Structures are given as C-alpha cells and as structure tokens.
C-alpha cells in the first residue's frame, strides 16, 4: 500500500499541518518522515511509557485513552506524540488504532530540528496546541 513519492506529496499538501509548505518543502518532508501502517487494536503510544516518535495521520483513526477512558479521536491530518517528545516525559495517553492506520513517522530526537527547519509547520502546530489548551481553559484565552 506504499504510495509513490508523488502521491505522498499530494496527500501532504492537503493536510493543515503542512498547508503553508511549497512543493519542494513537501518533498523534503516526505523524504524525512517514514510511512508506517498499524492494524486495528494496536497501541502505538503507551501512557506512562517512553514515547517513540511523532506521528501524522494520513488515513485511519485512533482513540486517545487516559487511564482506559476514551477522551478523543484523531483522524486524517491530526498528529500525536509531540507532547512527550517536547517535554521529555512519557506519553500522557494511550493511542490505540480504531481503523487500519496509515501514518508518517518521525523519530523523537529529530522533531526539534525538523520544526526549526520548517517554521510554518511549527506555527500550524502552535495553533493546534493553542486550540487544545483553549478547549481545556476559560474565557481568558
């Protein structure tokens, strides 16, 4: 099910996280990150255990579970794994696949460098995280 480089770049261009990148930059991203697939029911990140990377969902769906309770679902264009990498702490949630999952993966130690090279991606990520915080906070935001 691996896509051609061309197909992958087309798909990346449709994701919000990469919306501000030029074609050559998208090609760099496609080159830097690796495609991976996970079957239904697989635990990709484990709450309390060391995280293994940053993931951007290309297709499929996962559940975000905290202490066994489902708190959210993530699908195409959403990302996960960045919190524990940036904080240097174990993941706060389990990530479990609900539908056959197709992702792009970046190793944890590479994330900071990747974001510094692509400030536009960093800004999109900043926005997404601000929305998460807003959803958890009050009028002051």
């Amino acid at each position: 099910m691996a896509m051609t480089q061309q197909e992958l770049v087309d798909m990346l261009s449709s994701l919000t996280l990469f919306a501000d990148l030029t074609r050559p930059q998208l090609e760099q991203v496609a080159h830097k990150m690796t495609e991976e697939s996970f079957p239904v029911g697989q635990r990709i990140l484990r709450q309390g255990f060391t995280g293994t990377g940053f993931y951007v969902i290309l297709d499929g769906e996962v559940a975000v579970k905290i202490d066994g309770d489902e708190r959210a679902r993530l699908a195409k264009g959403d990302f996960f794994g960045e919190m524990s990498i940036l904080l240097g702490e174990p993941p706060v949630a389990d990530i479990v696949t609900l539908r056959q999952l197709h992702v792009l993966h970046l190793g944890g130690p590479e994330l900071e460098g990747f974001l510094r090279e692509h400030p536009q991606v960093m800004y999109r990520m900043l926005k997404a995280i601000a929305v998460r915080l807003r959803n958890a906070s009050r009028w002051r935001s």
Partner: protein
Amino acid sequence: MALSTQDKAAALAGVPLFAGISADSMERLAAVTGEQEFAPGQFIVRQGQVGTGLYVILSGSVKVLRGADELTRLGKGEFFGELSVIDQKPRNASIEAAEQTEVVALASWDLLALLESDPKLALNMIKGLVARVRLAVDELSGERLGH
C-alpha cells in the same frame, strides 16, 4: 507616555505564553508591540470578533463582559487575548475599559512574522503550551479520580 522596549518586555514577561523565552527573543517581541490608550466605556475587544491581539494592562482596569454580564475585572499587569493571538478564533467575551486604561498590544500578524524569523521563540512557546495542556489533562484526570 512613551515606553521603552525594556518596559514593554517587562509587561510581556508576566504572560505565561512567553514564559521561558530568552531575553533576546523577548526584546524582539517587545519591539513589535504598541501602546494604546482607552477611555472609560470604550471597547478594546468585542465578543464574537476574531481575536487579533494580546493585551497587557499597564494602568487602569477593564471589565470582562459576556453579553451584559460582567464576569470579572482585570487590572495592572493582567492580560487578555493570550491564545487568540495564536489561533485567531472569535473572542468569547468583550473587554471594556472601566477607567482610563493603558495597554501594551501585540498584533497576531506581528507575532507570526516574528515566529517565522525566530524558530527558537516558536519552539519555546510550543513547549510552554504543551506543558500547560499536560497540566490540564492531569487536572481533569485528578478530578475524575476524585483527587
């Protein structure tokens, strides 16, 4: 009253969004902010409008209104619009000057331009936000567990 960049940096330093950023980045941030003054009864932010700025109160005080209800008042050193400056979502409250009020204002487009030229600032801001999301998640879990 003309504020120095240092004065403005000192005002911004109290905003959690900028916790942990370097003095150098803070000075560049302060350099793109402006000062604004509002008369009593003047609206600084209207509910429902897209947020385009972050404001820190230098002097005076403001009312935080939702519809006709006054939720609270904010005074010197306090701020509003913290996350709107990043995500540009509609404001969920109005802010009206309760007296003559002076603020330091940071426009979202100026912040964006700065983030693009200073990835370190952006990275520090992401780390700060992620830590707060984590705290919020922990608090939710704690409440649910009855802690």
